[in-house]
């Protein structure tokens, strides 16, 4: 029989597990008392605690819930689109929700289809994924993972959310604009976007809000990571997730301003009658435009893609970070090639600024410039491959636990692989001639973003939910959510490659049915894809219930008592906070000091199965985590 470990607390010897329980209970009581103390002076009024909070954890949750709702909305827009694509011209009673002007008698008009398309992209990218990946996961986890009490600028953090939310509302409100919302694609190419109806102006103003929000957030992240990391937390001891967020923040900081400039220029074109993007001699509907001319539509494309290419790495890097954390944790071994992954990420971020014109191969660029961008695009695939391969190899020899977060993380790997590989013929100028603006492109980017990033987001939600709420999401429904989503999502996007290769163009409101070369493949694949889309929507229902049921239960105080503060037995610092959720003020009772790397699982020669980062090197490692070693040492010294 193994001896029970004893520690000395003050003048007494206690069993370690009992001391652990007593400490947890004492802290919980103190926390409850603090919250109940009306005279305490740190009892904030409701509006400052829950609406204009400066606590990064609550702001992260605000971002998370808002972003998930926007994702659901963007998804519903897509469902309407897919109904039209699967059965073009048919009346659906659900279309009537768009109103008579957009869907008379329940039949979607082509102009309305364009509105859905433009807003689906905008909402998913700018209101959904980036706020979720960076605003929610980044805000919640980065200070915790670096052992900081909060972000460097808590009030700026609050301002950042309150630029995002009104910006999002403005985007939604644009649906009510006369003539409808933005309908020139999420890419808003002029001259079409300049002559488009009022909704486009609202889109531009909304974008200014969102870009401002991103900017404030990125400054906060970079300063926090550089300045507030814990004692002993050198850069190469960061969890990979922090590196990913760090590089992402630089992309947001330096790549977004050119789009802000471009948005200002387009606003001037639309509102002040300038001709930044309007060439001379433009004729619309038989009438010459009464503007000065001399502008250049390609200027918009250059400025837009200068942001939008780094933007796609903003979409994928946090996802890779999440997947890396979950894989390390659920294989019970360190990440393979951690150093290569870090340098690959930095190189990827840097290269992302010099590949943008691979979106413009068909704009009439000269062959020299095309060759340049083709070369840089091929080079940038290398760091992506390094990261993906490292994650795959990390599985080798692991004691894999197939829980729900791990399922989503594992699925991410081949899905991102397909997305990445299908990007290669798009990055080569010659093959891009056939594939540009076809469904092949849509298939490519959806594979990286939908079964790629969004699966990683789901993985992260299932993984960190217990830290944020003290409850685990239901495993059975999690697996149901996973399997149905996985099957349906492939059913939607895989046929798109075939469609694209057959020449079906994107942004066609009837999915290609009007073209002889496209008709057959469109009619064969589109209905199937639409049914899969409905299946994918159905698959989210158990997740939505699972999420809100457990979130509300947690808010009502029904924590999972047996869970502990580290249910996944993880090594990174966010799990060192002894309460779940962590303390409202300052995250940790004692700011951790870091002695080790981020993934000390199954360390040869150590008795402990995993060793948290803040465990001192001179202390014998405690079995299976538990009491904060630093606190144990402090207690021992008293």
């Amino acid at each position, binding site marked *: 029989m193994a001896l029970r470990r004893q520690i000395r607390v003050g003048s007494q010897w206690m069993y370690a597990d009992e001391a652990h329980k007593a400490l947890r209970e004492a802290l919980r009581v103190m926390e409850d008392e603090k919250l109940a103390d009306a005279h305490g002076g740190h009892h904030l009024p409701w509006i400052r605690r829950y609406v204009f909070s400066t606590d990064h954890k609550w702001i992260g949750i605000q971002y998370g819930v808002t972003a998930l709702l926007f994702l659901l909305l963007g998804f519903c827009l897509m469902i309407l689109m897919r109904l039209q694509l699967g059965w073009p011209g048919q009346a659906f009673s659900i279309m009537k929700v768009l109103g008579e002007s957009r869907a008379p008698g329940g039949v979607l008009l082509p102009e309305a289809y364009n509105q859905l398309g433009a807003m689906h992209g905008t909402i998913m990218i700018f209101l959904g994924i980036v706020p979720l990946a960076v605003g929610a996961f980044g805000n919640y986890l980065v200070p915790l993972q670096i052992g900081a009490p909060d972000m460097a600028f808590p009030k700026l953090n609050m301002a950042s959310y309150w630029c995002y939310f009104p910006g999002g509302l403005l985007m939604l409100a644009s649906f009510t604009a006369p003539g409808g919302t933005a309908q020139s694609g999420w890419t808003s190419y002029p001259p079409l976007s300049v002559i488009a109806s009022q909704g486009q102006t609202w889109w531009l103003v909304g974008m200014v809000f969102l870009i401002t929000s991103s900017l404030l957030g990125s400054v906060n992240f970079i300063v926090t990571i550089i300045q507030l990391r814990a*004692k002993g937390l050198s850069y190469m001891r960061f969890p990979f997730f922090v590196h990913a967020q760090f590089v992402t923040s630089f992309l947001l900081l*330096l790549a977004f301003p050119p789009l802000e400039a471009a948005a200002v220029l387009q606003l001037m074109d639309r509102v002040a009658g300038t001709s930044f993007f309007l060439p001379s001699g433009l004729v619309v509907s038989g009438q010459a435009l009464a503007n000065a001319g001399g502008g250049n539509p390609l200027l918009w494309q250059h400025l837009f893609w200068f942001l939008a290419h780094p933007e796609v790495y903003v979409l994928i890097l946090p996802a890779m970070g999440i997947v890396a954390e979950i894989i390390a944790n659920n294989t019970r071994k360190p990440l393979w090639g951690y150093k290569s992954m870090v340098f690959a990420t930095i190189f990827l971020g840097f290269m992302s600024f010099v590949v943008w014109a691979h979106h413009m191969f068909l704009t009439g660029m000269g062959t*020299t410039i095309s060759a340049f961008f083709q070369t840089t695009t091929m080079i940038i695939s290398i760091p992506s491959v390094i990261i993906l391969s490292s994650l795959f190899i990390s599985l080798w020899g692991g004691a894999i636990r197939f829980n729900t977060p791990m399922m989503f993380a594992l699925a991410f790997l081949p899905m991102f692989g397909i997305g990445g590989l299908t990007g290669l013929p798009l990055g080569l100028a010659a093959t891009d001639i056939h594939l540009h603006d076809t469904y092949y492109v849509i298939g490519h980017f959806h594979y990286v973003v939908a079964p790629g990033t969004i699966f990683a987001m789901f993985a992260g939600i299932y993984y960190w939910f217990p830290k944020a709420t003290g409850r685990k999401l239901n495993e059975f429904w999690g697996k149901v959510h996973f399997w149905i989503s996985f099957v349906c999502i492939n059913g939607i996007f895989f046929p798109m490659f075939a469609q694209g290769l057959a020449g079906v163009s994107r942004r066609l409101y009837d999915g290609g049915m009007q073209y002889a070369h496209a008709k057959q493949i469109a009619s064969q694949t589109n209905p199937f894809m639409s049914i899969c889309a409905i299946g994918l929507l159905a698959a989210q229902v158990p997740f939505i219930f699972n999420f809100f049921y457990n979130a509300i239960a947690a808010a009502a105080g029904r924590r999972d008592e047996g869970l502990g503060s580290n249910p996944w037995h993880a090594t990174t610092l966010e799990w060192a906070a002894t309460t779940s959720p962590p303390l409202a003020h300052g995250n940790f009772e004692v700011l951790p000091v870091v002695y080790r790397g981020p993934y000390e699982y199954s360390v040869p020669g150590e008795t402990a199965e995993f060793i948290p980062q803040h465990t001192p090197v001179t202390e014998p490692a405690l079995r299976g985590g538990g009491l904060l070693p630093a606190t144990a040492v402090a207690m021992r010294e008293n």
Partner: protein
Amino acid sequence: MTDPAAAVEPGVDIHEHAGIGDPNAHHHSPEQIRREMKVYLAVFAGLAVLTALTVGACYGLNLPVHQAIIVALIIASVKGFLVAGFFMHLLSEKKVIYGILILTVIFFIFLMALPISHHANPFGS
């Protein structure tokens, strides 16, 4: 008795200084500050002279466009260097700031390359 701090990089005691700071790095003596103020005035004089020079050369002398661009940009760069170097004390800044700015300059060059690439290699060339 084990001290957690000793187990970490000896000589770099970050948290020990939290809230106190390294007195030498941040605080200058009053004499130093007064000397800096004299430098600021000298820089101001330099900037004023250079401004007059730019206007005189490009507008007063009415230089042709290509020459005007080169002269004006060179003078503006010198003025910019003075403002950044002395008023923004970039000449004595920390490595982290230099790193961020070098990165920015590189991306700024990419941004400037945008119009050049657009016109230098049109379709069919």
